[in-house]
């Protein structure tokens, strides 16, 4: 099975709604995850975080990760968006949208993808923004 894959890294805010990456009649489960910047980082109040990427490698690693996980947990399609630069508290730094036939594949893919993203994809939190008042 071929997985449809959409990868996007950039400074734009992540939209509050993104279409399913595989809207066909064979999709029974659509799971979305947003990693949201919290108002505290290491115990300190912050106004946001700043993300940086080694962009071409990050995109390639994300695609490789998707392909490799897709063998174990076949899903129809994946959309990954990672915001770069400053991200204010309450906004999403990361979005994943996974379409699959059944929820079990989608859940397993999601958990595995997040674990490996946080190990192998060259994206960094490099700074904090000052907390507002």
């Amino acid at each position, binding site marked *: 099975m071929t997985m449809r894959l959409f990868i996007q890294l950039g400074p734009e805010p992540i939209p509050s709604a993104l279409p399913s990456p595989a809207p066909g009649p064979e999709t029974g489960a659509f799971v979305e995850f947003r990693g949201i910047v919290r108002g505290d980082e290491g115990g300190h109040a912050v106004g946001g975080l700043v993300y940086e990427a080694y962009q071409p*490698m990050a995109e390639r690693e994300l695609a490789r990760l998707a392909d490799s996980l897709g063998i174990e947990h076949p899903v129809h399609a994946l959309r990954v968006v990672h915001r770069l630069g400053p991200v204010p508290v309450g906004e999403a730094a990361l979005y994943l949208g996974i379409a699959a036939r059944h929820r079990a594949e989608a859940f397993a893919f999601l958990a595995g993808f997040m674990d490996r993203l*946080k190990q192998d994809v060259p994206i960094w939190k490099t700074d904090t923004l000052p907390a507002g008042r």
Partner: protein
Amino acid sequence: MTLLYFAQVRRITTLTSEPLVTESPLSTDELWQQILRRHPDLALLRPAIRLARNGEFAAPEAVFQPDDEVALIPPVSGG
């Protein structure tokens, strides 16, 4: 060879990239010797840094060519 620095590594080198002129291929150890000669403060971070060669993680036995793009990848923290 072009060296790329990110995140904690960039804060130590104070550069985002720099050229490293070499006439012959370098092993991982030889490359690190060159890097640490320029940026000795990276020594402490070295065990945590993975090298990427032309956008892919390099195996320990990798050989780095004179025209490679080499990135120093400190522990990632995306997501």
